[in-house]
């Protein structure tokens, strides 16, 4: 394997294996905040749940679903986004949730590229729901609005 980036490039290349050329790069991950470590622990917990964890026939969160959720959190969350909660589904699905600043936002990860996103505005009683495969632009707008509402509450 090459020492290529995990950021989406040619991680499947095997070139260094035979050309003798070596990369000059050291990868350093940046850190989002205190809640990041907790989130990692929570992912680990949810993918390791015992069968029947809910008292019935619940299965642990599927690896594919957890991986996709982690990718989402790592790439679409605005910098000032509050900490999400992770809630397991009995069928191996997973929800990423925020309940704050007068908004309920839930991303129901039914599978990779198969997400039901809902937003409930507690002030206006308005509900939005979209099915998302790859383009999370609308969800990012929701998260921005929630984060900005939090900043306004803090400033008031």
């Amino acid at each position, binding site marked *: 394997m090459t020492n290529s980036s995990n950021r989406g490039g040619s991680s499947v290349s095997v070139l260094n294996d035979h050309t003798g050329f070596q990369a*000059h790069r050291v990868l350093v991950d940046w850190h989002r905040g205190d809640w990041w470590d907790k989130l990692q622990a929570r992912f680990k917990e949810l993918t390791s749940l015992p069968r029947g964890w809910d008292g019935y026939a619940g299965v642990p969160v599927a690896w594919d679903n957890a991986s996709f959720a982690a990718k989402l959190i790592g790439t679409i969350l605005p910098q000032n986004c509050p900490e999400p909660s992770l809630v397991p589904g009995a069928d191996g699905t997973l929800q990423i949730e925020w309940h704050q600043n007068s908004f309920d936002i839930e991303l129901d990860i039914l599978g*990779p590229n198969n997400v039901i996103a809902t937003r409930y505005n507690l002030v206006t009683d308005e509900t939005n729901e979209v099915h998302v495969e790859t383009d999370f632009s609308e*969800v990012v707008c929701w998260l921005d609005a929630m984060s900005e509402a939090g900043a306004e509450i803090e400033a008031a």
Partner: protein
Amino acid sequence: MSLPSFDNPPLEEVVLGAQFSSPEGFNSTHNGQVWSLFGQEFPIVQDQPRLEPQFEVFGGQSPQQGIRLDFGPPPLRNRLWFVSNDQSHLLQFQDDRLLLNWRKRKEGEQYPRYETISDKFSEYLGRLDSFYSSKYQMPLRINQAEISYINIIPMENYREIGELLSLVRPSSVELEGINANFGEVIRRDTKPVARITYELQSVSTVDGRKRALRLSLTYRGKPLLENIDSTLDFISNGRDLIVKRFCDITTSKAHGLWRRTS
């Protein structure tokens, strides 16, 4: 309109890949059965660390700075390399991935051309699809596909980079090394469908005597449908774009060096 073509491209490696749902019931003992599907063309087997799942998603504000969540060990299954006798072709398999690499083994070796590699990949995907369908009653449900072109461009002094690449043109900067990623979202009818990642990286031999620039272009995303035909369409579109973009980001001087024919 025909694609640009070169008699002597700096191409060192081409990778075609598909990622799919892991079938329930798969375990490591089944790897031998998978190898038996490909053993005639790929008699050499090597264990490799497992690849992490890759998903292209869109809408984030800084996708290049995406951070990674590690939450413990992945499933206890390896990736296997099935290698051809001449080592030029390599099939990478794990229960949720199949990738075909062509790699240049020696100077002067001819690139077998995309159509040849794509036909092989199609055939190998078909074999795996039949195996999954009969053993797990689940055809391949492909959720991501990708194609990468990796070029090695010899370059003793990185000041010369602007002479060959129009993407980066340092004027008076004495570059010691280069590590840069660029992302481009590809849209169809304003809807994002794939991402091209451009990677520029200075590389050198272990003894430091030879230096070069590695230029990788990767096109990745979710095919329109989960089946093999849709995946091959996606990869073919990616190949066309990669070839066009490669010409866009390299100079006419470079095209002369690599003997552009169309």
